[in-house]
């Protein structure tokens, strides 16, 4: 399949994934609102979780709604947004490098990998994957510098890159530091920092939405710029 078509499919798949993630957030918020309203109108119950043995009633569920309904749901879907975007960016780079592997000519290949490969494409893919695994461990600014170095798309702009870096840093705080901001967040988030060390990180709904909008815009900009470039060449 031509690269332009593969990029179009990747763009659509990523947009669909982001939409599904946000729909899950929105629908779940609504479901929790219905639960709260139903209970406030007198609905009573007792339920036991057969796995944990935990028994809860309607008042407990009201308490859970504030945990799961607002905070945990926002945090988990926010993490999902970032994961979807990371997958997009590295899938894009993988497609690009597979099509233009000349930029990797100085990379060495283990002879065993050549013996194991079914064909030339499999060797190229192995080199590309090894290269991207190394890039993946860099910071977002390096990801985008790498993208620009390889594809010369002229996007995203520096402000978008800084905002994505902050969002990724917020995600890292949630995943690796139980939500408590540390020095690493301050360094990673730079001028876009929203907190000081020691604070519990906030993922308020407007921020959650802004990051979602930003990621969609960057996906669209990168794919559209690449497609235009491919069509012009």
């Amino acid at each position, binding site marked *: 399949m031509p690269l332009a078509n593969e990029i179009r499919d990747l763009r659509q798949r990523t947009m669909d994934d982001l939409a599904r993630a946000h729909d899950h957030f929105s629908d779940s918020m609504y479901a929790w609102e219905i639960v709260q309203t139903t209970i406030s109108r007198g609905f009573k119950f007792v339920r036991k979780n057969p796995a944990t043995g935990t028994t809860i009633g309607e008042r407990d569920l009201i308490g859970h709604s504030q*945990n799961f309904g607002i905070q945990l749901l926002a945090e988990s879907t926010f993490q999902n947004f970032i994961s979807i975007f990371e997958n997009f960016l590295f899938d894009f780079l993988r497609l690009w490098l597979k099509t233009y592997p000349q930029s990797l000519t100085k990379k060495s290949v283990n002879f065993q990998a050549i013996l194991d490969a079914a064909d030339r494409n499999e060797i190229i893919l192995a080199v590309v994957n090894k290269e991207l695994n190394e890039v993946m461990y860099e910071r977002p600014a390096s990801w985008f510098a790498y993208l620009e170095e390889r594809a010369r798309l002229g996007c995203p702009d520096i402000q978008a890159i800084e905002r994505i870096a902050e969002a990724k840093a917020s995600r890292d705080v949630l995943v690796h530091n139980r939500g408590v901001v540390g020095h690493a967040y301050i360094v990673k988030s730079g001028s876009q920092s929203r907190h000081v060390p020691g604070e519990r990180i906030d993922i*308020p709904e407007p921020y959650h939405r802004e990051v979602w909008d930003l990621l969609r815009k960057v996906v669209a900009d990168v794919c559209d710029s690449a497609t235009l470039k491919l069509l012009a060449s």
Partner: protein
Amino acid sequence: MIDQMTQKPFEVRFSEGTAGFVRLPVAQLNEVCRVLDEKGFRYWVSESQYSMNGGPEWTSIQFSHSVDPRAVQSALDRAN
């Protein structure tokens, strides 16, 4: 301050480790936000608004983890 939908005082909900939030009728959003602004609380209004069976719309306000929910409750209790 009384919630016009429930006819009860506003309740700032929170539990250990979570930020506070309050549900409120959309019709009272401005007056509640005025109280919160006067006290300098850091908060965000949800962009979602809900209604059931054609009743009045409600929404929610989420507070930063840095805001003590008890202080918000106290401010709303004292407001007219």
